[in-house]
């Protein structure tokens, strides 16, 4: 997947993270080449969110290595961490828009606060980003609470792309949306990532979404990557866990703790 000599955009090695006695990540190894889109799939509680939060720097792993553009990011000072974070854009599961700010200021937040763009120019850039994700600019001065779930996701996507990041993260982008709106959001994600030439990492348990968004898929189970390959091969992975997961079967090697 990575051409010889090219450092992957994101490289994760031997990542471990535990909360008390609960070992969530048990040695994750993952490479994401520049310009590619990877979907990490897996059931609830398998460590997807912990993985993405560790890469972004929201959680401190117990051990392992996370390289961004070949640079080790674990143990960076806050200032150095901020420099690395400027490469990132993220769409959160619940959009995570700031309630206290109007929609346009949410979208322009990164431009104003971290890039020092003047408010008037930032507003123009925000309206442009809103156009890109199909949001009517008439809602620019509305509060996020006045928007529907789908519109909030679009606004969150506009905020993520407004700073033109090199790497984009998507946390369950279709959760809570109807299938049509989910498909729209996926299309916007693919379009935005292509236009920016960004590298994308998505975590999801929605297989339809993973197939639409990703070039490659990695499956995580019990804190380890159990399969990693092109999205086109996922139906013939030869991995029983992947087969069980993508077909939604209750019987198979993946054991769920379900009280009946």
């Amino acid at each position: 997947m990575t051409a010889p000599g090219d450092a992957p955009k994101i490289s994760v090695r031997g990542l471990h993270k535990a909360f008390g006695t609960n070992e969530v990540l048990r040695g994750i190894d993952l490479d994401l080449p520049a310009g590619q889109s990877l979907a990490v799939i897996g059931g609830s509680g398998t460590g997807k969110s912990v993985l993405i939060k560790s890469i972004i720097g929201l959680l401190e792993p117990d051990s392992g290595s996370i390289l961004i553009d070949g640079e080790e990011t674990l143990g960076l000072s806050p200032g150095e961490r901020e420099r690395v974070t400027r490469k990132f854009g993220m769409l959160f599961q619940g959009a995570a828009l700031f309630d206290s700010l109007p929609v346009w200021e949410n979208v322009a937040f990164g431009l104003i606060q971290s890039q020092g763009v003047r408010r008037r120019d930032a507003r123009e850039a925000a309206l442009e980003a809103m156009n890109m994700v199909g949001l009517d600019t008439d809602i620019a001065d509305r509060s996020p609470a006045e928007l529907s779930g789908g519109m909030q996701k679009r606004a969150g996507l506009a905020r993520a792309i407004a700073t033109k990041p090199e790497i984009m993260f998507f946390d369950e982008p279709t959760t809570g949306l109807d299938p049509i709106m989910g498909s729209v959001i996926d299309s916007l994600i693919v379009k935005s990532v292509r236009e920016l030439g960004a590298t994308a990492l998505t975590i999801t348990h929605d297989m339809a979404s993973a197939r639409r968004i990703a070039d490659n898929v990695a499956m995580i189970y019990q804190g380890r990557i159990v399969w990693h390959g092109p999205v086109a091969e996922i139906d013939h992975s030869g991995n029983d866990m992947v087969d069980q997961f993508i077909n939604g079967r209750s019987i198979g090697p993946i054991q769920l703790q379900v009280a009946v």
Partner: protein
Amino acid sequence: MRFLASIGRGTISTFATIGQIAVFAGIGLYHCVRPPFYPRLIVQQMIEIGYYSLPVVGLTAIFTGAVLALQSFNGFGFAGEATIANVVVWGITRELGPVLAGLMVAGRIGAAMAAEIGTMRVTEQIDALTTLSTNPYKYLVAPRLIAAIAMLPLLVLVADVIGVLGGFLVSVYDFGFNPTTYLKSTWDSLDGTGFVSGLVKAAVFGFLVALMGTYHGYHSKGGAQGVGQATTNAVVSASILLLLFNFIITAVFFAS
């Protein structure tokens, strides 16, 4: 053994919490003095803390001043303008003004801070700040600390004036005191150290209220119930700390 173990666990947990609050306060204060600053947010918080707290602080002060005059008059039997004015001005400027204003602001602002920041925590808005290269301490904590430290002394200044006015109204219209003599006695009773101690207390109380509000909000978890718990903890801990520091500051100023 089980009893001793539970005492040990409680002690360790208490010291761990004190340590966490101290570290949080240190980081918050560090970001108060290190640029970049957010003047827009600081002004917004000043208006929220100072301007919108005026009615509740003013009402508390006027009734407290009035009650102080009433109780002093009844308690001392017959007392002249000088005695009542002295009791009111000392009581309000040294203790009741700062303490009651602090407690009112703890209830109004400390709770609001904890609820707002707690909701931001559980809805991942604080994580979003980090991904947008914005330090949450600088954006959320520092403006609230600066605004509360600056506005509480101003609120107490207003509470002092209104509290003394409450005593004046009761003394003049209920006891029939001479207004000019009462005002002169009030002015004569006003001592610089007592007045300054009240303002120092106010600044410290402002810091404590904002610290507890932001700390408990920042560390809230578990959805709506967690935010509710954080709000309760913010008000209760700020109120207790406020009374503790009131004693400490009083001892520092007036121990001799």
